[in-house]
């Protein structure tokens, strides 16, 4: 039995522990070859193997009546009626974005688009969830500007609308920005395709761009061994996105599926060909033979391990019957897209890679996909330690209520996102019924006459205060956003952005947050259909706030009645719906006041919140309301101000006794307005009208002043 040679510790540089390496040697009965080591190190990484999160993720409910495809496929898919399915997924591209924010964010969008068309769905919308350090930091402003430009560059160029998103600025993200992108796609159910390879003798065809040394990342230690000094040009580089190539690849892939030329389809993402081929083989219980010499290269002289792990963008892998290959190549030519047979399906159960007639890798598929050890977390609740420094106070302790409201509206987290969303095309494809800032969720008309609603949410600061309740709130907040446009949730996707899970307190944050999401999903009857985990988001000096990002998709019957957030008509009554019992824990006003992060967050009154959602949703769908808006960050004061600013009209409100206008409880309270008769039985708190927002006995501020504060918040920095 070979042992780990002490002189060869390359596996450590590749991120494998000595124990993992020993396990590989034991399973193979020999040391892995270079190419094999590169492949295994990536397949056994957290990103591919979920080795620190898999056990925890099992707690999430994944089944529901509408689910057509659940976790494990390229994207989850839910049934939206009339033979149509909606595929969706959110994924992180945090590290590449921290290194090169424009390309990192652009390729993040490119990657999530491919996940969606890999299941046969046409991408119809992109949303993104971004986290940066405070905008007072020059680096944060640079990252923001570049990441937004990158998303715009890619999303706008491929003709998929960017319909929503969210941005938070917190010092905890200064070293590790987060760039999560979500995509939705639409497909006739019959066109949906899985990634499982099948049929020994069938041909493996690589579609799309040439393979270069992009994003070889960790595996570069193998390159270092081979390259001499001064070979900087040959070193791996960041992935560069080409949206034009993606657009052609997208159209071409959908055309191939439409013509029923493909047996299976898989996108190439992290770990490139290795991961795509392994997943396809594993899914189908087959083996694959790959010939590296046939992979079209962008530059000469790539080593086989580089070919196998390259993360060059805009590539897909498909399985085609031998007698249909010529048709596939011809269809691709029409779209100026390369299609190259690079291997075949076998019944060997092995991944065999040849290069220059030599067998450079010969591994059981199972060792790549199934044999990575799964680690139990060792969660420990941190007691009596404060994990995050208190933010600096920017609001004077004696600030008046009016000053506080203006400060909140102008704060980086609550200010208008217009400067950002104006860089995105939200209307291409002609189905966008509610654009950014018009409603709490984006609304997209379906060919069935109904509509989809989608929202993305996740307030890391609140999760840092109280991981279980904070993560649950993110689910409720998303559901509240859908409720306000009249939609019933069908499913959700999540991206779990956390620090190093081997640290007991991060493990605790992760397990608690997942438990919170699971409980909220069960309470609301919303299944998790897919997602992504991004761990180790920490720099030596700081870890990020634990940041689960939730993307939720719902369905509403009549797009013409989709709710809007703006106050519309003078004289309308305003009602407060829901068990809204907010506190200042983890709130925006607590941040501006320089308070340390601390829970607990308000206790979720599950049944009452569900009732409130039903009430609001029913009224929106009946066309009875003129506006609906959920009360989120900044409390009811900010929510009212947002309705006023959006409508360009004031309101006069008497808050219920004891209700702190700036205290928060996310996803639990709703503001609705309409004629009195429509609001019968609800708690009327005021009326729309005038040109100022007046909270009786608390504050009066002109709508123009509210608008100026909200509009100026980010403009100061961009």
């Amino acid at each position: 039995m070979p042992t780990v040679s002490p002189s060869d510790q390359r596996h450590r540089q590749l991120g494998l522990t000595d124990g993992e390496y020993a396990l590989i040697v034991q399973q193979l009965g020999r040391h892995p070859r270079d190419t094999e080591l590169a492949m295994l190190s990536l397949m056994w990484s957290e990103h591919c193997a979920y080795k620190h999160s898999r056990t925890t993720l099992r707690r999430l409910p994944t089944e529901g009546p509408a689910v057509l495809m659940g976790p494990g496929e390229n994207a989850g898919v839910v049934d939206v009626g009339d033979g149509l399915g909606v595929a969706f997924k959110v994924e992180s591209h945090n590290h590449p974005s921290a290194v090169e924010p424009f390309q990192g964010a652009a390729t993040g969008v490119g990657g999530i688009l491919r996940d969606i068309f890999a299941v046969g769905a046409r991408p119809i919308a992109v949303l993104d969830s971004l986290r940066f350090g405070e905008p007072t930091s020059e680096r944060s402003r640079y990252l923001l500007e570049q990441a937004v430009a990158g998303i715009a560059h890619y999303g706008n160029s491929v003709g998929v609308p960017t319909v929503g998103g969210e941005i938070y600025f917190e010092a905890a993200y200064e070293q590790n920005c987060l760039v999560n992108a979500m995509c939705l796609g639409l497909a006739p159910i019959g066109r949906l395709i899985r990634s499982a390879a099948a049929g020994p003798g069938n041909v493996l065809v690589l579609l799309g761009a040439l393979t270069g040394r992009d994003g070889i990342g960790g595996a570069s230690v193998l390159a270092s061994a081979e390259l001499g000094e001064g070979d900087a040009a040959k070193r791996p580089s960041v992935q560069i996105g080409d949206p034009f190539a993606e657009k052609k690849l997208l159209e071409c892939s959908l055309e191939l599926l439409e013509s029923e030329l493909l047996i299976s389809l898989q996108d190439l993402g992290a770990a490139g060909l290795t991961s795509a081929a392994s997943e396809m083989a594993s899914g189908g219980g087959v083996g694959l033979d790959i010939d590296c010499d046939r992979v079209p290269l962008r530059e000469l002289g790539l080593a086989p391990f580089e070919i196998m792990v390259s993360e060059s963008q805009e590539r897909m892998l498909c399985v085609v019957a031998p007698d249909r290959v010529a048709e596939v190549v011809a269809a691709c030519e029409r779209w100026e897209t390369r299609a190259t047979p690079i291997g075949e399906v076998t019944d060997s159960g092995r991944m065999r890679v040849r290069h220059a007639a030599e067998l450079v890798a010969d591994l059981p598929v199972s060792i790549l996909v199934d044999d990575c050890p799964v680690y139990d977390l060792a969660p420990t609740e941190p007691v009596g330690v404060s994990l995050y420094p208190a933010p600096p106070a920017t609001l004077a302790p004696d600030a008046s209520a009016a000053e506080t409201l203006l400060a909140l509206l102008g704060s980086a987290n609550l200010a208008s996102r217009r400067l950002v969303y104006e860089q995105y095309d939200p209307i291409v494809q002609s189905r966008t019924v509610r654009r950014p800032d018009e409603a709490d969720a984006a609304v997209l008309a379906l060919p069935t006459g109904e509509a989809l609603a989608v929202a993305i949410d996740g307030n890391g600061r609140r999760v840092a205060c109280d991981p279980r309740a904070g993560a649950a709130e993110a689910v409720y907040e998303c559901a509240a956003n859908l409720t306000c446009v009249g939609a019933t949730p069908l499913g959700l996707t999540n991206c779990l952005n956390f620090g190093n899970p081997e640290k007991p307190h991060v493990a605790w944050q992760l397990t608690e947050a997942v438990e919170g999401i699971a409980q909220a999903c069960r309470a609301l009857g919303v299944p998790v259909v897919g997602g992504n985990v991004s761990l180790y988001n920490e720099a030596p000096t700081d870890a990020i706030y634990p940041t689960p990002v939730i993307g939720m998709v719902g369905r509403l019957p009549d797009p013409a009645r989709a709710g809007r957030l703006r106050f519309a008509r003078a004289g309308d009554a305003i009602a407060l719906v829901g068990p809204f019992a907010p506190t200042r824990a983890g709130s925006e006003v607590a941040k501006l006041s320089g308070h340390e992060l601390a829970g607990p967050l308000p206790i979720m009154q599950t049944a009452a919140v569900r009732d409130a959602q039903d009430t609001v949703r029913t009224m929106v769908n009946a066309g009875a309301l003129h506006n609906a808006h959920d009360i989120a960050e900044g409390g009811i004061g900010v929510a009212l101000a947002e309705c006023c600013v959006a409508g360009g009209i004031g309101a006069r409100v008497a808050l219920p006794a004891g209700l702190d206008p700036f205290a928060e409880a996310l996803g639990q309270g709703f503001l609705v307005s309409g004629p009195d008769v429509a609001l019968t039985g609800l708690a009327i708190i005021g009326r729309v009208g005038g040109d100022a927002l007046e909270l009786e006995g608390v504050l009066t501020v002109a709508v123009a002043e509210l608008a100026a504060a909200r509009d100026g918040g980010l403009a100061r920095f961009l």
Partner: protein
Amino acid sequence: MKFGVIRFPGSCDEVDAQLACQRVGEAEILWHADRDLRGVDAVVVPGGFSYGDYLRAGAIARFAPVMVEVAEFARAGGLVLGICNGFQVLCEAGLLPGALLDNANLRFVFRQVSLVVVSSDSPFTRACEPDRPLSIPVKHMTGCYYAPPELLRGLQERDQVLLRYAPGHNPNGSLRDIAGVCNAARNVFGLMPHPEHAVDPLTGSIDGLAIFQSIRAAVADRLAV
């Protein structure tokens, strides 16, 4: 009547344009690599990024096989509408005067803007009510209209500026707030705003319909002659 909407590999708004055309007539997609306009009565060069727009927006698209036919069609008096990237392509092809530069703030801009109809004396604006501004969205990175001074003067003298951004609505730094111009023969028109995204009350305004209705009416008149 039948519209033909060109599809380049990087077109994004061709289906949107087709849907808009179908509100007033028939419309089919024409493939960039085919030298065939299939007998359509009017051509729309739609928005998007034709060939990735890598050299300059529209620079490669103008050499597409189908553009040879479009140029011929235009020379024979056929109506050609270029929207956004289509406007850029028509300028690059020399079918429209002037050029489009990157937006003054170097950022992509999406915004619902208000447009002033400067002249309704054209096959593209004849159905527009004078003095009634149009609310139509823009979305582009390269939409800053430029023409050298003498050309600009000529355009104004010959009433070729059909649309301007209303005061305060110029989103890109265009000279004299120019949003859309036609050629001297008035049968080729390009504009940066997207009238095809303003044809359905469900998804926005319906002010863009007037452009398509104008084309239909103009084609009907010609067919009647």
